[in-house]
């Protein structure tokens, strides 16, 4: 595409960037996407090899963390704070959907109105019902598997493919939830259980985080990107954006980027959409300094990079006498409980959490905490294959002191300042996690566990909140249509625009939000201006 003809420049080819690029191209816009990584050869995935787990336990080119992959297209993310998160992201066409588990819950209506309901954080300027048609549309685009009828969530249409199997560990958890009379339901997954469109059904190998060569997992390189490219979208791989440029009136002009050879290139477009995730987006905005925007783009109120949210997490394991085969079946979560999702003030905290039944990795990962020496085999034999996992995903309310900033020492392979993520758990989150540990232990024991292992809490590092959507220009970075305040043709569309983080995995909401934002960009900035 000729550089002078571009309607929309999209930066980042992950979950949000793919959706925005497809939707706008489908409507007739000329779209170019710059992606710092490349296409991933599906036959190179670690999931094809019996030693796939080594990519979890040591540095390697498929490690979940960019800091442990250290590939040219990755950028370092340093961490700080009392509870520094483990940073997970992937830089390639498809973005973090390449290694994501495919768990696909939606936010609840209450998640959008926490200020009104609970007096905490802020309300989103949109509601669940504004996003609901986009959730539905996206589910059909990618072929979500699951089952409708869950009383803990608003009604949704019949899922495009049936639910994935529970397996022995899932059925064991059901026993516990049923005994206690608690809510549970099978998860929606961005993994198809039957052939859907041109993608083959999941064969239940269970290595989803190490790449799905079958294409059963809805990575956007296999779902939205082929459609977008067929319609005329152009994706320029190995193109790392250095900064977004602005004209002398303060409008976004395009971007300066490094191409594969490390040469500087400039691209211009009528509209710029940033889709670089909750760390990459504030990093790019903060690196885009100019005379008009000395503190970075969209940062006139100092809110870019603030309110970083990650989802406080606990991985709790029940040890059972019998074999549980927890490593068999699609990695991720066969079922969930939202018994403690909505606020109940008697629990001592606001908002709530989800419990995810969690399959385990293989023996290498499970051996990590087993002592070495003469008791090694006996100790290993107690946990493998006898574990059933529950993962707590806690609602992460925004805190201004949790931030993504520019690191003053580290740079990426093009010399661009790296990101620094600072995070500490709030008192509300600590109380919530404490409650979740008690309840997880209770349900695991009810399911028949002879022992429950509670390791220290961790943070999943779902990347959210750092260019948040708000009801006021004073306390947010983007408006209800994902447009950056004060810059008429610059949009931020990814997890960074979340006002609150909810207590569920974020990808379905990122994609629904991207579909909605694309409609608004078309109406307000492309079609409306043509």
């Amino acid at each position, binding site marked *: 595409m000729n550089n002078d003809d571009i309607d929309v420049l999209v930066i980042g080819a992950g979950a949000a960037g793919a959706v925005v690029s497809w939707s706008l191209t489908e409507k007739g816009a000329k779209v170019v996407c710059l992606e710092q990584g490349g296409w991933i050869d599906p036959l190179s995935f670690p999931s094809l*090899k019996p030693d796939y787990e080594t990519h979890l336990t040591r540095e390697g080119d498929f490690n979940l963390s960019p800091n442990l992959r250290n590939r040219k297209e990755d950028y370092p993310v340093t961490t700080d704070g009392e509870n520094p998160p483990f940073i997970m992201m992937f830089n390639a066409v498809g973005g973090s959907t390449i290694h994501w588990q495919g768990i696909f819950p939606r936010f609840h209506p209450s998640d959008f109105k926490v200020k009104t309901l609970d007096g905490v954080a802020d309300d989103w300027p949109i509601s669940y019902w504004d996003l609901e048609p986009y959730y539905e549309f996206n589910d059909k685009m990618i072929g979500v598997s699951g089952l409708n009828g869950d009383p803990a969530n608003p009604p949704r249409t019949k899922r495009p493919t049936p639910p994935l199997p529970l397996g022995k560990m899932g059925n064991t958890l059901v026993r516990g939830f*049923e005994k206690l009379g608690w809510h549970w339901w099978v998860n929606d997954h961005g993994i198809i259980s039957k052939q859907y469109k041109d993608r083959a059904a999941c064969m239940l190998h269970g290595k989803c985080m190490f790449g799905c060569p079958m294409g059963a997992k809805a990575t956007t390189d296999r779902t939205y990107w082929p459609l977008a490219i067929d319609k005329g979208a152009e994706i320029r791989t190995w193109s790392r954006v250095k900064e977004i440029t602005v004209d002398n009136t303060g409008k976004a002009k395009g971007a300066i980027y490094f191409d594969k050879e490390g040469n500087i290139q400039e691209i211009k477009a009528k509209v710029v959409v940033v889709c670089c995730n909750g760390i990459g987006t504030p990093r790019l905005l903060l690196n885009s300094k100019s005379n008009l925007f000395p503190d970075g783009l969209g940062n006139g109120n100092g809110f870019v990079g603030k309110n970083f949210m990650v989802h406080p997490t606990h991985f709790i394991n029940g040890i059972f006498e019998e074999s549980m085969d927890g490593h068999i079946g699609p990695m991720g979560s066969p079922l969930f409980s939202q018994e403690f999702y909505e606020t109940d003030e008697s629990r001592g905290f606001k908002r709530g959490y989800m419990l995810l039944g969690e399959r385990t990795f293989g023996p290498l990962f499970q051996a990590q905490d087993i002592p070495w020496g003469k008791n090694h085999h006996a100790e290993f034999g107690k946990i493998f294959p006898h574990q059933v996992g529950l993962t707590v995903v806690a609602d992460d309310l925004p805190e201004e002191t949790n931030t993504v900033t520019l690191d003053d020492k580290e740079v990426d392979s093009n010399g661009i300042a790296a990101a620094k993520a600072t995070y500490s758990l709030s008192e509300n989150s600590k109380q919530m996690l404490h409650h979740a540990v008690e309840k997880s232990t209770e349900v695991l024991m009810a399911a028949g566990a002879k022992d429950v292992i509670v390791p220290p809490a961790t943070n999943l590092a779902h990347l959210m909140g750092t260019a948040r959507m708000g009801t006021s220009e004073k306390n947010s970075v983007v408006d209800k249509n994902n447009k950056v305040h004060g810059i008429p043709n610059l949009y931020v569309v990814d997890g960074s625009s979340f006002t609150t983080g909810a207590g569920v995995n974020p990808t379905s909401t990122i994609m629904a939000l991207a579909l909605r934002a694309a409609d608004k960009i078309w109406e307000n900035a492309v079609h409306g201006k043509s």
Partner: protein
Amino acid sequence: MNSNNWSRRKFTKAVISAQALLASGVLTLPMACAESNKSEGDTPLDNSQEQTLKFAMDEIIPANDKMPSASKVGGVNYILKIVEEFPDLSPLFISLTAKIEGQSLQQAGSAFSKINSEKRIAVLITIEQTEPELFKVLKDFTYESYYTNDTVHELISYEPYPTGTTGPEMEPLDEKLLDRVKNTPSMFTKI
């Protein structure tokens, strides 16, 4: 792993062939540390260092009546292959074996391979306490060599089901399990 020169067209072709191969269930791929063609002369550690490593790995994961020790399932060879693949790791393992031997001499007055198991364990505990990062290299690679090994997988009844083979058989969801929950009043806050 990542494909510097890959175009969208090449990617599409690969996707189609991958799906065909995987669906057939006949594709097998070598492990990352598969057999190499290097001659013995290229070995990154000398015989003495290999012996030290062998005895150390066998204290980390010893044999019992059912399970073999780490070296019995190719642990030393596994590490040698890794060092061949990533030569930057060579000084680390040389340093590790030197530390073990030095500590053995200091603590037990003899080479690590010449002292008894009890004394070897004591040497390793000292290193674990004084140089935890170096000890972690030994422990992590021993575990890695062991728990990625086919023989061990068989002994612990672990079927890894690498993608590309036939997956496990699993029963579909029995929806009756959800009868109670289905009859629960709606639980979400309506707003």
